């Protein structure tokens, strides 16, 4: 239907916003909010100091005292998993946000101007995506040296391309709509057309991709941590935790399993939120 009578008043907008949310989105939002709380206030929530040794309870299995058990130094796994939330959530954000900003800007400009910039961009993309993502990131980390900051740099160097590609395609699709031409005929500046008109209509898939990318960043960060290229022990980080537990996988399974579950749940939360956001951002009508 092309014609929808304007029944609802604006003040119901917020109400409608919530009404339009899908159950999956609410579950996802809940997971991410809880994760965020854990990440922001681990010291209030974690039952023990994550680095305190307790040699009376070495490798004790999950129990009333230690819900997730303890490791070979008697550190409480639950507390370590909770403290790791700060590192891993930070990782999700910092490893992706620069890729997002750089990629969106470059993609929007290239998609709008095309021409020579598009040729150069095409070469860049080809150069970067011919290598497997992980291999490239590991190569950059190897050059810069291990550590969280270098890992962020490495992921951004490679990751912006995916955002830029998506953005470029989306902007080009939007350009086919006459409202972009209308903007030009109205004499608006290029930056106004790109950022005020095209971008808001083109950003949705990028936001959705960003959500999945944050989940991937956690996985990637954990993998690098596991390989010793990301966060460095004794810092509590899920990848590091899993790596620490790998030698005891038969005797103390909880050491690797619990951080693994945390990764899965958080990743799940991100993709649910991604889908929900896509739903909400879709223009109505």
């Amino acid at each position, binding site marked *: 239907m092309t014609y929808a*009578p304007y029944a609802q008043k604006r003040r119901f907008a917020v109400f409608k916003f919530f009404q339009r949310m899908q159950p999956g989105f609410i579950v996802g939002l809940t997971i991410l909010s809880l994760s965020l709380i854990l990440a922001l206030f681990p010291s209030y929530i974690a039952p023990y100091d994550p680095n305190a040794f307790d040699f009376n309870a070495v490798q004790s299995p999950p129990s009333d005292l230690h819900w997730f058990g303890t490791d070979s130094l008697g550190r409480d796994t639950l507390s370590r998993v909770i403290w790791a939330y700060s590192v891993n959530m930070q990782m999700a954000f910092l490893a992706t946000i620069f890729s997002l900003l750089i990629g969106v800007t470059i993609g929007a400009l290239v998609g709008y101007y095309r021409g020579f910039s598009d040729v150069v961009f095409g070469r860049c993309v080809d150069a970067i995506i011919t290598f497997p993502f992980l291999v490239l990131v590991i190569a950059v980390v190897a050059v810069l040296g291990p550590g969280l900051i270098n890992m962020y740099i490495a992921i951004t160097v490679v990751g912006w391309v995916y955002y830029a590609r998506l953005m470029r395609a989306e902007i080009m699709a939007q350009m086919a709509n006459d409202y972009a031409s209308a903007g030009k005929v109205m004499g608006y500046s290029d930056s106004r057309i790109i950022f005020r008109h095209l971008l808001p209509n083109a950003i949705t898939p990028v936001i959705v991709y960003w959500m999945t990318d944050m989940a991937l960043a956690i996985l990637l960060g954990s993998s690098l941590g596991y390989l010793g290229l990301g966060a460095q022990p004794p810092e509590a980080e899920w990848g590091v935790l899993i790596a620490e537990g790998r030698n005891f996988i038969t005797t103390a399974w909880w050491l690797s399993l619990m951080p693994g579950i945390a990764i899965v749940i958080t990743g799940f939360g991100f993709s649910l939120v991604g889908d929900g956001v896509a739903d909400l951002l879709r223009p109505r009508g």
Partner: protein
Amino acid sequence: MFQQSSSSDVKTGQQSTKSIRYTSKALPLLDVRNLSTSFGHDTEKLLAIDDVSFTVAPGEILGLVGESGSGKSITLRSILGLTKRYGQVEGKVLWKNQNMNIMKNKELRRIRGSEIAMIFQEPMSSLNPLLTVGLQIDENLKAHTKLSRSARKKRSIELLDLVGIPSAADRLDDYPHQFSGGMRQRVMIAIALASEPELLLADEPTTALDVTIQQQILDLILDLSKNMNMSVIMVTHDLGVAAQTCDRIAVMYGGKLVEVGPVREILRNPQHPYSIGLLRSVPEDVAPRSELYSLPGIPPSLADRPKGCCFAPRCPAAMTKCVTDRPELQQAGNSCSVACFNPQTITSGNIA
């Protein structure tokens, strides 16, 4: 040309699969009675077409005109039972006196595409882009005739030739994207004609085309109708197209037929205020740059159709009764039927 081919190798193959051509003049070929189609569930039931009745005689071309969203396409689709999947269809669709609305899918398939064929509104999307044109015609021939492979190929070439595609034999192996819009529409017609249908449902067959190509396609349909005694229901929103091709016209508004009659009656002496408005807003034979007659407002949306006459909010001749009661299609003097409490003539004073 067509007659020749159908009398030679084709006939033999075809007779066995198809019932005898319907030639009775007394009974209509298609008799649609109280057809209603609605979408959605009880709480939010949207009546797309509402109590539509009309007939089509053998060899007759019936025009179905009306604004976008008035239900023209849904009417055609409901005749073929294509709306059953997503809507409820009530009423009778009597095809040679058999009710198609209660037929099983198996029986319907026998009629669809062979006795009744349809051309869809978008010529682009109704051809499969991955199959050659030849293959798509062949598919239809295989389904509805018992011709041999080589006979089918010969027939395909004849059909493309018939719809005016030059060097038809060479173009069988081309893909749809290699044809222009007008040629694609002709291919669609060729496919529809493969089974020599007795009724052709044409949904805006020329809307996407240019006037010069439109003229060719309309001439083609007229020719076929005359030579094969094929009936046609032609949906269009262009009154010019209807005027030039149809024998009778049915005007549709808000899912109902509001006026039905012979083409000259409807176009010269329309009586329903909507038909009058539609006709008068066409800028033909009016002083250049003068103000065109225009109906105020826009058609009602499906969700809030008025209780009484659907047209009442826009009708210059509306009376109080129109808001509460719904007018039914009734014989109006001559050969026309009109659904209106206060029929007008095109020159009458209160519409201006």
